[in-house]
């Protein structure tokens, strides 16, 4: 059941990415272009998604989920060097290519040299992160 739900949620998530414009690097780079022709429309993704998620979490936190494990109660409040360095590297990469992990996977549905290269590079980046010792991580 959990597997089927995850599959269905993946579909819904991908369609949401498509409708919002997150699958188009040109649009994402336009959103990041604060100092130029800024295109704020992708803010709608966060403005739309966060409250829905927040409401669901607030209502269910600490309780058993319907077909799986407990819904987590707490979220991490820890700020450390790993977060700052990781998020900065992610930001640099995002500004280079305009694709984050969800769209990189979803774009597999439209195979091209570009979409395959982004996905392969991202997977390589994730695999490289396995080399960072957990103590440092």
């Amino acid at each position, binding site marked *: 059941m*959990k597997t*089927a739900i*995850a*599959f269905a*949620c*993946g579909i*819904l998530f*991908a369609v*949401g990415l*498509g*409708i919002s*414009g997150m699958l188009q690097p040109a649009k994402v780079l336009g959103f990041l*272009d*604060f*100092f130029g022709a800024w295109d704020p429309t992708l803010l709608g993704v*966060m403005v739309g*998604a966060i*409250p829905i*998620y*927040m409401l*669901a979490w607030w209502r*269910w*936190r600490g309780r058993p*989920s319907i077909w*799986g*494990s407990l*819904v*987590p109660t707490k979220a991490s*409040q820890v*700020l450390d060097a790993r977060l700052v360095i*990781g*998020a900065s*590297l*992610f*930001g*640099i*990469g*995002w*500004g*280079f290519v*305009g*694709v*984050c*992990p969800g769209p990189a*996977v*979803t*774009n*597999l*549905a*439209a195979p091209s040299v*570009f979409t395959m290269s*982004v996905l392969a*590079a991202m997977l*390589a*980046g*994730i695999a*490289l*992160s396995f080399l*960072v010792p957990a103590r440092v*991580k």
Partner: protein
Amino acid sequence: MIGSAAAALLVLTGKTAGVSGIVDGALRGESGEWRWKVAFLAGLVAGGLLLAWRMPAALAETSPRSMPWVIAGGLLVGFGARLGGGCTSGHGVCGIGRGSLRGLVGTAIFIAVGALVVFLLRTFA
């Protein structure tokens, strides 16, 4: 829709819809977790195919950037997301949605750094 998908996964299975963490777990073959993670990723691709059929303009096959930027960007996005413990969905939607300071700071950093990089590339590249 993204919010509903992440919320549904949380309420129905207790899991977090952070895409970089899901890819990470699927790659590692994390015991007890990889099945739902692989299923979620398969769902993303299935959703992509649905878009390709009904809304082909939503999918991008090209980029405004040339190949070296694309490769370097992909590497940094993958590595950075795992080092920082989250990407746009994990920190940006699920983290902030749960009132996580870590998620909020992570999101602020990658948007600010991304904007700076876009500015620098537009100005100097």
